[in-house]
């Protein structure tokens, strides 16, 4: 890669640091207000108890558990995308990994809060640790999520070390007040990075370990979440396929979320020159493969249950296919599963718009799918009583919206202090920059012709 392209790349990567224009503050204010509304609703619930929610004696798991599974799934997709791209040494990964890793951490922080929200009494969370029962899936869950969270932070931080040095150097030339304030922080966090071979070796080893480790960790977290359901005797939950189905669903929705987040930052931060249509095409391929695999798993699950018409599972299947949950089920199956695959797979123009549209449908559809797992499974009576009903209250809806807004808020705040694209990754995949008179690297040659994407 030539010096000029690298310079442009670095300029874009560190551009948002310490910069707060009007749009930034408007975004922070709007998202902050939604998050504040969510926090208010949670405080309201803590003061009055869980009766202010739509949860009841029969359907005691609702929006909170749905959101927990959903957001941790999103996190999983971010971590997996980055780890897989690193391990397969995908040459096109450089501008994407940082956003994927940050999305993973932000979504995990939101998802991990939900078990506490669902408890009703947050102070009782300590009891899970004080009176831990090793046989309890909740203890497995807390252990897995905590481990995964620590690993995600480390996985975000390690590749950031060289980029913090880049940011340190870039900001040393700036006369902005923020630059002066942030310089010592970058100096401390970059650990004196100079890009020496010994440093490169240490970093490659650490990042390699984490890239390998994060995959089984993420699988374990979502498997444990699935076992929370599967080790009960409830219809449709007590299934051996639940853990792989959850893992696959998490990857599917996670990759979709990564596509949406990358598209948003590409647009807002002006990264079009570096995040091109080809990146969205490759991620769309991943989305299509995961969607196809999810369809296979889902069909496998339903055909196994449905063929024998087992007494316990048949009512739930009826409720899903033709009963009160049929609209949601078919909306998910067609609008959230089949349609996005078709949209993403069709050749033609607007690959970015199609990838983003398909991803939006997948995200909405996979949230609906979690609803269809949690609520009908809970509502079906396993004792001789009527079906339960569930209507979320304004408290649950507000907390859900607040937590959803917390993810973009955390991301834009994070990227105000840290480079949005990985410079070190770029050097790794493209090689160190060549002298200015060297021929342009083929991947970035169109930049000088005013190109930068076919969308």
């Amino acid at each position, binding site marked *: 890669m030539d010096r000029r392209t690298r310079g442009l790349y670095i300029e874009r990567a560190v551009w948002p640091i310490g910069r707060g224009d009007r749009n930034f503050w408007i975004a922070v204010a709007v998202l902050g207000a939604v998050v504040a509304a969510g926090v208010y609703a949670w405080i309201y619930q803590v003061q009055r108890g869980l009766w202010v929610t739509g949860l*009841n004696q029969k359907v005691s798991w609702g929006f909170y558990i749905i959101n927990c599974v959903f957001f941790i799934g999103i996190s999983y997709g971010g971590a997996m995308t980055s780890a897989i791209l690193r391990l397969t040494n995908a040459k096109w990964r450089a501008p994407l990994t940082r956003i994927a890793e940050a999305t993973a951490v932000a979504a995990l922080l939101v998802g991990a809060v939900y078990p506490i929200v669902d408890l009703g009494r947050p102070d009782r969370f300590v009891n899970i640790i004080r009176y831990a029962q090793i046989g309890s899936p909740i203890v497995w869950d807390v252990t897995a999520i905590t*481990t995964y969270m620590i690993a995600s932070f480390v996985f975000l931080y390690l590749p950031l070390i060289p980029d913090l040095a880049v940011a340190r150097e870039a900001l040393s030339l700036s006369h902005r007040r923020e630059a002066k304030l942030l310089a010592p922080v970058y100096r401390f966090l970059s650990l004196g990075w100079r890009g020496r071979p010994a*440093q490169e070796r240490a970093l490659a080893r650490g990042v390699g370990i984490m890239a390998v480790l994060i995959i089984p960790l993420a699988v374990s977290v979502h498997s444990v979440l699935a076992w929370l359901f599967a080790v009960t005797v409830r219809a449709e939950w007590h299934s051996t396929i639940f853990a792989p189905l959850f893992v696959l669903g998490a990857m599917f929705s996670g990759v979709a979320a990564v596509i949406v987040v990358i598209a948003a930052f590409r647009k807002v931060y002006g990264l079009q020159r570096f995040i091109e249509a080809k990146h969205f095409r490759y991620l769309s391929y991943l989305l299509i493969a995961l969607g196809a695999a999810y369809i296979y798993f889902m069909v496998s699950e339903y055909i196994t249950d449905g063929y024998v018409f087992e007494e316990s599972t048949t009512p739930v299947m009826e409720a899903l296919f033709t009963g009160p949950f049929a609209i949601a089920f078919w*909306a998910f199956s067609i609008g959230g599963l089949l349609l996005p695959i078709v949209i993403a797979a069709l050749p033609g123009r607007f690959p970015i718009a199609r990838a983003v549209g398909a991803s939006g449908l997948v995200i909405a559809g996979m949230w609906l799918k979690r609803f269809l797992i949690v609520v009908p499974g809970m509502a079906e009576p396993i004792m*001789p009583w009527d079906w339960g009903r569930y209507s979320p*209250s304004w408290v649950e809806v507000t907390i859900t919206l607040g937590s959803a807004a917390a993810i973009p808020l955390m991301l834009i705040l994070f990227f105000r202090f840290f480079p949005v694209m990985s410079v070190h990754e770029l050097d790794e995949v493209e090689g160190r920059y060549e002298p200015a008179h060297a021929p342009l690297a083929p991947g970035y040659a169109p930049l000088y012709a005013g190109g930068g994407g076919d969308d």
Partner: protein
Amino acid sequence: MTRGLRVLIAVLALVAATVVLQLDLRGLLPGQVRLEAPNTMLMSPPSSGQGAPGGVSAQRPAAAAAPNAARVQLRTSAAASAPDGYVLAASVATPDGRPAAGATVTFYEVVDLLGSREMLIDSATSDGRGNASVVYLPARAGSHEIVARSTGIAKAASGEARSTLEATVTAKAYAPETPSISAFYNAVPYGVGLVVLAVWLLIAFALLGTARGVVRGARREEEKGVIA
């Protein structure tokens, strides 16, 4: 805005509308919280009327019974075989005092489970003398408030009687049979614990090892600079 994008937005809006309709999000304005009525099949809210506490078998009449209500008397006594627990015996009579045969008498215990409510014990049909009884083995020792309620008597409303049972004999605590692979079960937590510990150590190694390598690399360079 391109046509394709407009179509996508329309589809997304359609999905969102479907979600809203499916989730029945109407009436979600602050303060409008709808809760399901508690289940009444096995548990039901208790009837009004409080009795005197204590006593081995304190018979208490139903409070504010309807004029045409069946008359119910409830007695509790130890079962013939002590481990079986207690006999809850109800005598049911028509409003004019004649024994009521064929009436269904349902016995409940008043419990405090997510609020005070009645737990179904069992039901029995009254014989020619109007007597119906069940055997009850409580799960815990101490005072139990028992309710007997009769139904199925022609031209008579449901009657009710309450009594307090002081139980000293209780059912044994549930203890599952030890499975043959229990030795394996017992070892699982240690195995899982070791795996978790190994993972944490690996994370620590990745973080601290990298930090150490980077800092050392920087120091070496500084030292070289000083020597030069």
